[in-house]
């Protein structure tokens, strides 16, 4: 599914944010990525969702070597990845419904075809009555749930989430984790970057920890 070999990353002439990162995510696995702030978690995610190119090393995504792949192949790879951004990145002029439906529109699905799925999913994350609200009128937690619904709506092969429960109360957080678990059972490979120890302790999943840009395997799931 995903393989990193001796991957290093630096922004411009700055110091290396990631050093010799080597790991593999098997299809259908559930993994937590932890580490102190500034350890490079977001950078690692960016490399995985193709927002940045590594400074060195080899990344293989869905069997494609990114170093040798054509740029024109990237959009198709990106569509197989659902991302929950730390800052949500919702389109402020679109309703919650339209934000969630965006990946399906990009995949060329027809409105009639996905309306029910989107409504059901928004109900699941507790936003059944806020479907037509625009992001600026939603609370931080509500925006986060819209962002999560958008990431999972297309049942991606890979789900990457950056602190997806940072803004919600523990009850909703558990619900969202169950949603990720459900998706994982359906075959999606899930990787969640989080600080939430409670969340990790309650789960028996694999945990990888980033310290000073180096990856340490803490627990095999």
């Amino acid at each position, binding site marked *: 599914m995903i393989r990193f070999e001796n991957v290093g990353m630096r922004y411009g002439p700055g110091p290396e944010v990631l050093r010799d990162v080597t790991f593999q995510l098997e299809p259908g696995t559930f993994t937590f990525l932890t580490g102190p702030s500034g350890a490079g978690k977001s950078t690692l995610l960016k490399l995985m969702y*193709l927002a940045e190119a590594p400074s060195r090393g080899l990344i293989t995504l869905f069997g494609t070597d990114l170093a040798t792949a054509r740029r024109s192949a*990237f*959009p198709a790879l*990106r569509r197989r990845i659902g*991302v929950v951004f730390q800052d949500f990145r919702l389109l402020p002029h*679109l309703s919650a419904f339209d934000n969630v439906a*965006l990946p399906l529109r*990009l995949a060329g699905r027809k409105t009639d075809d996905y309306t029910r799925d989107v409504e059901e999913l928004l109900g699941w994350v507790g936003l059944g009555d806020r479907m037509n609200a625009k992001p600026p009128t939603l609370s931080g937690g509500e925006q986060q749930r819209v962002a999560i619904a958008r990431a999972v709506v297309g049942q991606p092969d890979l789900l990457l989430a950056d602190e997806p429960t940072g803004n919600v109360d523990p009850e909703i957080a558990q619900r969202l984790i169950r949603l990720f678990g459900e998706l994982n059972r359906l075959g999606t490979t899930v990787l969640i970057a989080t600080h939430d120890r409670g969340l990790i302790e309650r789960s028996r999943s694999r945990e990888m920890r980033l310290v000073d840009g180096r990856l340490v395997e803490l627990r095999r799931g």
Partner: protein
Amino acid sequence: MSEKQRVRGRILPREKGAAPLDVVIAVMAFLAALALGASMLADRQAESWREGLAGRLTVQILQPEHPTSSRNLNTETEAALQILRGTRGILTVTPMPDADAAKLVAPWLGADAMVKDLPLPRLIDASIVPGEHVDFAQLTARLQTVAPDSNVDDHTRWISRLQTLANTIIYAAYTILALIAVATAAAVSFATRAGLEAHHDIVALLHQMGAHSGFIARAFEWHYLLSTLAASAVGAGLAGIAFLAAGGLEFAGVEPVPFLPPLGLNPQELVWLLAVPLASAAIAWATARLSVLAVLREIY
């Protein structure tokens, strides 16, 4: 909210800050349409000058110095008339009556009986079959065999001077049109780029979600094509109304300015003003597409 409102929201917002740019585009389109209309007026006027003088010639026969009974003004005029009527390509031949010739000189010499004694030349007005070529050198030579003191004026000198004047006006109008077209293109292009700048986050997000460059570019192209089309149609429409109003004034009997052509455009000419919003929309389309693709190339 209705189902229709909920689904398929526009991927790009209708930006509120765009109004001043729309106004700039509308004003530039108005000026471009005025320049285009003016160049058509100049072209039409130059054409009417050409048509007015071209296709005619005037033969002037002077009084012989020593007239005889067989060779005098009347016999020479008659012989010249015969030659003209027999010349291929000449449509009509009309000798100017002496009374009319006298009228021509009246403003300078007065209308006294004395004028009748002056050896005024005879004038013959001839028109040429449209499209027919008449060899003036040969005609002049033939006329001089029967009337040695005759000359032929085909108005070439006047036509070429008027032509030069008309061309100067047309080229000036075209130059102004070209300058305004460049300024309009720059304004449209600037407005489009400014809008894109504001939407950089959306471009980046769509790209991140796996949208193809073509999909993203299309969203922007249509957005800017339609808004520019609307703004420039307003500008060109106002220019069209201005030309219609100018035509209406003449129709209502307002005295036209001497030497200026009528300022109204006819329906066929008004249709050409549509070129302004169409060209503006095309520029916006191309700018949006190229700009989006350039932005996307910079993102990994």
